[in-house]
């Protein structure tokens, strides 16, 4: 029992991100409404960011800002790995840019077809 708990505590972060990723993927693929799909896409991206952040984590370490007065004796194991954070800052920016473009497209589609449901749009295209 203790062993199982240990494994769960050691790995649950990695599992939760998979759950979130599947939720997002379901949103993108199965939903019919375009804005819902965009929400799903954002969830998908955030899940991957979560994965990266959890892998940078170190037990017993503090945030990666060097404490004043201790500049001379910095040990790497005292600070959380900053590299995944940097990568994920970039990924967040990419995510918000994609979100902006996707929403602009959704607004444009609504202007053109007067609806956000994918099946109704396809219906309208087939008719014309």
């Amino acid at each position, binding site marked *: 029992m203790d062993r199982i708990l240990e494994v769960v505590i050691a790995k649950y972060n990695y599992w939760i991100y998979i759950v979130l990723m599947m939720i997002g993927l379901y949103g993108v693929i199965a939903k019919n409404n375009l804005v819902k799909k965009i929400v799903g896409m954002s969830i*998908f991206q955030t899940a991957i960011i979560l994965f990266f952040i959890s892998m940078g984590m170190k037990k017993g370490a503090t945030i990666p800002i060097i404490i004043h007065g201790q500049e001379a004796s910095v040990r790497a194991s005292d600070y959380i790995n900053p590299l995944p954070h940097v990568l994920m800052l970039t990924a967040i920016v990419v995510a918000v840019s994609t979100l902006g473009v996707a929403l602009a497209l959704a607004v444009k589609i609504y202007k053109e077809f007067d609806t956000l449901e994918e099946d109704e749009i396809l219906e309208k295209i087939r008719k014309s």
Partner: protein
Amino acid sequence: MTSHLPALVVTVPLLTAFAAFAAGWLRPKLCFPVGLTGLGITAISSIWLLAEVLEAGTVTYELGRWPAPWGIVYVVDRLNGVVLAAISLCAFIQWISSRASVKSQFSDRIGAFYGLELLFVTGVMGITVTGDAFNLYVLLEIASITAYALIAMGGGRAPLSSLNYVFMGTIGACFYLLGVGYLYIMTGSLNMADLASILRGMRSSQAILVAFVIIIVGVWLKMGFFPLHGWLPNAYTHAPWPATTLIAPLMTKVMAYVMMRLVLFLFGPEYSFGVLGLKDVVVWWASLAVVAGSVIALSQKDLKRMITCIILIEIAYMVGGTFLGNRSGTTGAIFHLVNDVFMTLCVFLAVSSLAFRQRELDMDTMEGLFSEMPFTMGALVTGALSIVGVPPTCGFFSKWLLLKGALEAGHYEFMVALILSSLVCLVLFFRVFEAAYFDHGERSHGHHRMREAPLGMVVPLLVVAIGIVALGLMSGEVISSIIEPALPRGVL
């Protein structure tokens, strides 16, 4: 100055993009010459870079002067040197030829359009030149976001197709990022050369296997490889012409390059082809994709849609050729990639100049085009013959290598698919030429005679057509001096 060339090929289009966008607000007339100069410098420096690489071997450039695993480095070897030269030339030629149609379609937002086009070029150049796995993701997103916007500028269905592309492209890029995360958690590095050397010792890891699969699937999604191609025909068909002629030749080819880079260099041929046993499955799958692409292309009526479907076939060639795993197959795939940039560019430019004079592009409206637009049609014939694979053009030689590779590897199904798809392409283009060559004389009176496309479109088109033939004639030297030495030693 020569030592800074790898940085120049990316930063020059980037800075030009800002200049073009600012010029769009201040003085719209300046956009075109600014971009022309920028792309010209880029093309010259990338060719120079290729010469440098051929002479002195691999060039490495440390950005911010941080050494390799800590900072980001650019690595140019023969493989991406030749791809870089092809991309920059293609962008330069397209820039000249699209001037008239951009002017007529986007007169009120010319700066934004040109800025996005230049950013797209920056993105694909960066993807090609970078030696860092995460940097590749960022540049991939630049190329994708600009491509989404450019595609969505077409009327009617274009925004919907583009939004579909957004979803598929984001999922693909995220899969790639996830795979990079798996690699990072197992190795702790992001630099490609460093990763490759660490991965050599981790052959049996499950996590690396999963990373390999996820990354390749993500890249295939971006490439539009067969079962994942859903977004491609719609997006390219509904895009406005100046955007299609830029994106269609470059985006999928660059992703094919990324696949080769990862399979051949990052994971290494021994891992990709040896440990997994996925090799044969992928080749079978590629053969299937070739056949499926041919069927899809045959069922199209619209000319633009038809030529976008041909991209599906070409992509499947490259995947199959890479995964044949022997020397001639891989060489064929790389050479086909370079050829395909120019072949696709030629065909798309030719069709776009037809479309510039004539809005509807059905088979029925093409009658008598040979006598009316002889140069455009001549270039179209050259491009088409190259896609079909007729000897003096370059398409023949790469297909020949692919066939040879398939024969050596014993994959007869890939050979059959190759020959079959060549026949299909022949049929497809022959339909067009038949309609265009024979003037049935039963034209409706509304059909006025068309003039040749403007000079700014015809001249670049002819240059590309001559380039295709020239590349075909020089194929021996290109293969033996550039592409063969580019392969890693593990490819037998």
